[in-house]
């Protein structure tokens, strides 16, 4: 047998996530897991090449970072623009933006759960990777696959019915919206609500059944406690579009409440690491080592005191019961939280569509450059998103800082994969595909969006290289 010494297992590319990434599992001399590293090996450089552009172009440029959550970028961006102009959005324009963002949240959560993650729950972690994807679901559970696809379509349909485009929409402008919602389109969206609600309920049943049948795994899956950050409304309710921020600690004690997002730099700092293009943000008052925090659906539900809508509130109480009053740290519960949010988003979309003001043409206020600095914040499907612009005295950007949700989850993702790798891989010479899938699925819990232009759905091969400490290839496996 070849000397084991220190070896590496590399999972590349990580599949069924949005973007490109690689995992390296570093083994120690005994073949046990020493450390796992999550690398994001694509470089985009948006912050740099946006310098010199006009601030009003940012709501158009920044959504191009991503095809899954472009609307969150647009919204964070227009909020920053509105701060630069010193204006408030028009009432209906604001409602429409909120509705479009809910649509994106529904669409993105449907993609994450039904297209990317449900194959693990419905087909099994150890099933054949060739069919462990949405196509496999379509073959074995055609009704669920179709419903998942249609739920995603519904979310995008909201954008299309308002702006004419599903992805990378035009029309989200400083001061509100550039186009209104017609009565005909409003009716078409309302007609779709019952089906969307039913699909989310089915998703909830799938995940709850999986929880019941795999209780030990779910409860022990990457459960290290972290801090949480999320947006809340005036009364502590879960909020995606317009609110203040709340930080809680590992026990659920509120560290910061109703924090104005404009003050984010007082509480969040970033550090670069040499193995990934993603930076490592942390909660500044606790320092780099103790300041790990998470964002996204799990974090939003952990920080929230309640949900806005009745059915989601019922599920929220069940979710809170898992933690018994404390934050739910289990990474696996991201999926459950995501579906509760999807339910809330469908219900809230229905409320907005039933508001008579939604078809008003009072959609945009107008302004011009007035201030040098703008900060915008919104809850993207994957977590809190910040856009921060500094302009010169003509409105040209001098500095751009984009703090992306996945970036904020990066330290925790890294820690979670280390935990799961240690739990499932005990001997580096005997690594099954199913074990590696579990490590990958830890990443999928976070539903990271790695500035994606490509969406892997399990069709790409996963390559595993086992390399000794001198860099010599000991074994090579292609899934």
């Amino acid at each position: 047998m070849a000397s084991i010494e220190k070896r590496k297992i590399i999972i590349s590319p990580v599949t069924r996530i949005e973007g490109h990434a690689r995992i390296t599992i570093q083994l120690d001399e005994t073949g046990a897991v020493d450390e796992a590293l999550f690398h994001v090996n694509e470089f985009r450089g948006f912050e740099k090449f946006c310098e010199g552009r006009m601030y009003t172009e940012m709501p158009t440029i920044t959504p191009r970072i991503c095809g899954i959550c472009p609307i969150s970028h647009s919204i964070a961006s227009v909020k920053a623009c509105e701060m630069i102009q010193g204006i408030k959005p028009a009432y209906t324009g604001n409602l429409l933006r909120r509705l479009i963002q809910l649509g994106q949240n529904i669409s993105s959560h449907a993609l994450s759960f039904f297209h990317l993650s449900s194959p693990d729950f419905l087909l099994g972690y150890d099933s054949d990777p060739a069919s462990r994807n949405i196509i496999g679901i379509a073959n074995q559970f055609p009704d669920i696959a179709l419903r998942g696809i249609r739920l995603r379509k519904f979310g995008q349909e909201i954008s299309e019915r308002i702006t004419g485009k599903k992805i990378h929409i035009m029309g989200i402008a400083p001061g509100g919206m550039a186009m209104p919602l017609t009565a005909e389109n409003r009716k078409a969206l309302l007609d779709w609500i019952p089906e969307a609600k039913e699909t989310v309920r089915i998703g909830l049943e799938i995940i709850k059944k999986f929880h019941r049948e795999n209780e030990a795994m779910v409860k022990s899956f990457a459960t290290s406690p972290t801090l949480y950050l999320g947006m809340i409304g005036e009364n502590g309710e879960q909020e995606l579009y317009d609110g203040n921020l709340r930080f809680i600690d590992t026990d659920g004690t509120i560290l910061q409440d109703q924090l104005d997002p404009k003050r984010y730099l007082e509480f969040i700092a970033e550090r670069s690491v040499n193995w990934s293009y993603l930076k490592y943000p942390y909660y500044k008052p606790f320092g780099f080592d103790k300041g790990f925090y998470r964002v996204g659906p799990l974090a939003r539900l952990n920080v929230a005191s309640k949900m806005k809508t009745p059915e989601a509130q019922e599920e929220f109480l069940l979710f809170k019961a898992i933690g018994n009053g404390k934050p739910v740290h289990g990474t696996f519960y991201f999926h459950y939280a995501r579906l509760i949010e999807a339910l809330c988003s469908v219900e809230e979309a229905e409320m907005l569509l039933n508001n008579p003001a939604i078809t008003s043409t009072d959609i945009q206020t107008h302004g011009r450059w007035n201030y040098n600095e703008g900060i915008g914040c919104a809850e993207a499907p994957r977590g809190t998103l910040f856009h921060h612009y500094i302009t010169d005295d003509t409105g040209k950007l001098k500095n751009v800082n984009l703090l992306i949700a996945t970036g904020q989850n990066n330290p925790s993702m890294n820690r979670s994969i280390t935990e799961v790798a240690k739990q499932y891989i005990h001997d580096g010479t005997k690594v099954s595909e199913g074990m590696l899938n579990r490590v990958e699925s830890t990443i999928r819990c976070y539903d990271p969006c790695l500035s994606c232009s490509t969406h892997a759905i399990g069709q790409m091969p996963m390559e595993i290289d086992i390399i000794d400490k001198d860099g010599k290839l000991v074994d090579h496996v292609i899934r």
Partner: protein
Amino acid sequence: MTTITIHINEKEYQVAPGKTILEVCRENDIEILTMCHLKGIMDVGACRLCLVEIEGVNRLLSACTTKVGANMIIRTDTERIKRYQRITTELFFAERNHVCSVCVANGKCELQQLGYKVGLDHIRYPFLYPQCEVDSSHPWYVMDHNRCIMCTRCVRVCNEVEGAHNWDVMNRGYQVRVISDFNTPWGESITCTSCGKCLHACPTGAIWPKAIVQGQLNKKPEIIEELMEKRAMKL
């Protein structure tokens, strides 16, 4: 009225002398691609998109600056012309930094429409990626040299219609640039009247109003001709 006989694409036409080939073609619904041509201002034949073949002439001539002559035999639709139009369009895109997806003029851009018309699906020439400044010094408008194709419609409209002559051209070849006054920031121009005609004349997203975003651009190049007609009626 005296007329002359010409042939375009093997069809005979009786036309008034003194007209340009482009005018005759437009009157008779014969499609000719243009970019630097704008009704109401003088033609300069800069873009080379309206090239036509004329029997007995070795080189291609621009339809906007060539007047019809008796018994002229003109062709506007040969493979050679189409090839040249495609090359010209590709060079427009390769010369500066055109990114339609994030451009304020996306969906309302004459260059983008031209790309669709010639079937532009890729560009065979290396992109130059020049470092171009965005001039945001004007209080209401922005001049983005990244998106300028040097059609000089803004230069001519400013000179011939507004009479201000704020815009002009400096340098040659790929270093050519539209400049304000003697290459001063637009906001510091002593000749600009801020009338906005250059904005309406610009076929791309090179000149646009500051406070709008993609989807809100509403350029009206046709107002230049209307203005000139109204002035002629008053005279």
